[in-house]
């Protein structure tokens, strides 16, 4: 691995031959949005969730949803942001590498582009997202030891949500991170003439803090990792950042990234700090009253839903057994093509588990 190849793996501009690698990634194809798309998505997700949960309340006991103050999309966002910060605390506790932390944060944020906190509380999802990230970044630890380090957490609490989290991510496990690009920029600047290594080190450390702050924002959904990295460097040292950009794009009078840097920098400064704890506490207090009753283990609504599911599964088992019986009566379980087909059709999954 050389410095340049790392950098080019997360290119800043389309002039790089490596650009296509990033553009072929699931991150680029599935997880990039305009600011407006993000707002619309969250708004739609939230209003769908509210009406579904309102229904659940009404099913449980008619009229009961009238007094419930559901969370808004903005309030959901605040709560998630609080838990993004908590992922970092957990990672510090476990001494996980930055790769694990950054990946877990991305997973948590992506999860809530597909789910509502009123169904799944981020304090639980966070634990699963982090556990999954240890595996996808190739730093696995045993579930038992993981859970034992977290108060009031059993292995099953982590595992029960793993499938849901993986599904919500669309199984897109690979993530491109700004801290990697930042490291590439840092290596590159070392090779520029007339750079004081002391200044560079100070700038790099400051930029690293900005990269961490950027994790609390929507930057990763809007900009490329290398754009974010350069913006962070530019916040730390505009001089070094522009020296790097000039060296990188010598033929261009106006480096192609310059246009977006300002917006990213503003976003990091505006949104890159943890939410006000009092405000979030209030959101969390209300969440206790507007949680989806169907997701609360042991509640009436939950049990009802469970019973429906079990009834369906039971009916299917009966149909399957019937089909198998018919096949057996024909003498050979696999002789009769029709019966066999019937068995296979019903046999969608539980054949050997």
């Amino acid at each position: 691995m050389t410095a340049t190849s790392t950098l080019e793996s997360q290119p800043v501009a389309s002039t790089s031959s490596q650009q296509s690698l990033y553009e072929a990634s699931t991150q680029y194809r599935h997880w990039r949005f305009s600011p407006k798309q993000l707002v619309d998505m969250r708004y739609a997700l939230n209003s769908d969730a509210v009406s579904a949960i309102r229904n659940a309340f009404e099913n449980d006991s008619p009229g009961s949803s009238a007094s419930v103050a559901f969370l808004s999309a903005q309030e959901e966002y605040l709560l998630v942001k609080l838990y993004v910060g908590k992922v970092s605390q957990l990672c510090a506790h476990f001494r996980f590498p930055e790769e694990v932390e950054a990946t877990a944060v991305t997973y948590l944020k992506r999860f809530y582009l597909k789910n509502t906190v009123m169904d799944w509380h981020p304090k639980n999802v966070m634990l699963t997202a982090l556990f999954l990230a240890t595996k996808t970044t190739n730093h696995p630890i045993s579930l038992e030891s993981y859970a034992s380090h977290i108060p009031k957490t059993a292995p099953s609490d982590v595992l029960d949500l793993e499938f849901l989290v993986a599904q919500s991510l669309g199984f897109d496990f690979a993530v491109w991170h700004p801290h990697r690009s930042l490291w590439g920029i840092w290596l590159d600047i070392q090779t520029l003439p007339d750079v004081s290594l002391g200044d560079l080190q100070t700038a790099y450390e400051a930029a690293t803090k900005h990269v961490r702050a950027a994790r609390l924002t929507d930057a990763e959904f809007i900009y490329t990792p290398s754009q974010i990295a350069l913006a962070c460097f530019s916040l730390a040292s505009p001089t070094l950042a522009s020296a790097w950009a000039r060296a990188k794009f010598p033929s261009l009078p106006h480096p192609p990234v310059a246009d977006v840097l300002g917006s990213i920098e503003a976003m990091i400064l505006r949104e890159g700090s943890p939410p006000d704890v009092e405000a979030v506490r209030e959101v969390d207090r209300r969440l206790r009253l507007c949680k989806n009753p169907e997701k609360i283990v042991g509640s009436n609504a939950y049990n009802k839903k469970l019973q429906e599911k079990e009834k369906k599964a039971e009916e299917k088992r009966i149909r399957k057994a019937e089909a198998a019986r018919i096949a057996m009566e024909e003498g050979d379980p696999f002789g009769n093509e029709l019966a066999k087909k019937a068995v296979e059709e019903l046999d969608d999954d539980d054949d050997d588990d």
Partner: protein
Amino acid sequence: MDAVEKANAERQRRWSKDQKIGEGTYAVVYRGRELATGRKVAIKKIKVGQFKDGLDMSAIREVKFLRELKHQNVIELLDVFSSKKNLNLVLEFLDTDLELVIKDRSLVFLPADIKSWMAMTFRGLEFCHRNFILHRDLKPNNLLIASDGQLKIADFGLARDFADPGYKMTCQVITRWYRPPELLWGCRYYSTAVDIWSVGCIFAELMLRTPYLPGETDMDQLKTIFRALGTPTETDWPGHTKLPDYVPVGQFPKTPLRELFTAASTDCLNLLSQCLIYDPKRRISAKDALSHPYFFALPYPSHPSKLPKPAKKDVPLEEMDGNVEMASSGPGVKANPPNKLKRKHSSEDLSSRPVARRLDFSK
């Protein structure tokens, strides 16, 4: 139903799972179809419930990397969905693999055929390496062959990315016969060169029609390598005696490759020798291999559709079951490659795989 569950159910409905065609240690493989188009696919169902640590690492690696890689010579992952506690990978359907092709004694390989397989292997591997992905389990059994003859690198259950330099990695990778000496001596900071060594072994196997370096144990593997290629000197491979698990394994003279590969062209042996260079730093890269004169000299690589492949025999099932033993007694296998990491020995594949494949021919 939640939006996420709904989306999953929609994905699931795109595919039909037809018939079981094979079984690995952590997965059952079905033949299936894309309902809209009738396209044939393979659905690899991974049982997740059985792992106490949840989704298992092989499955995670396979999904993680195949989601990102799209290349003609890398197996295509078409979709992923879950059902109950199972993870389903929808893969392009592939007729056979290079191990079966090599073992089929009725097939004759022309030099142009070998060149074609090698070119496709290097193309797929160059793409992986360009994406900072090490495969770490290349062997004929993991090079699958599509019906149009295209070779596809498959089985990314041991793959990892290497964009972060200086990370210690496990040396317990790659099936022994294809494992390079640096891993056998416990090197923990390795590179794309480990995959190139494996490709070199496959290259040789294509010419010999039998595994080139079939060691019986890890220690014997080093001996087998040195018996074939000579014991490395400090000039050949500076610093190798400092590797963590270094032990001297005896002095063997270098014999020219020409003595074993009597029919090969000079270009061919030159490329082979560059894949099997001891010093990983000097071993050829996939990119450079692709511009090696071997690929530009006559005979040109065979067109994939013209490559030899096992005949599709229309044999009734019962009869096939009786033939398992015959099918499994492939020549040239001197020992089981013991394999702590992999799900199954490739010698076991011999007894299950041909049957699994041929089940499919009775359609």
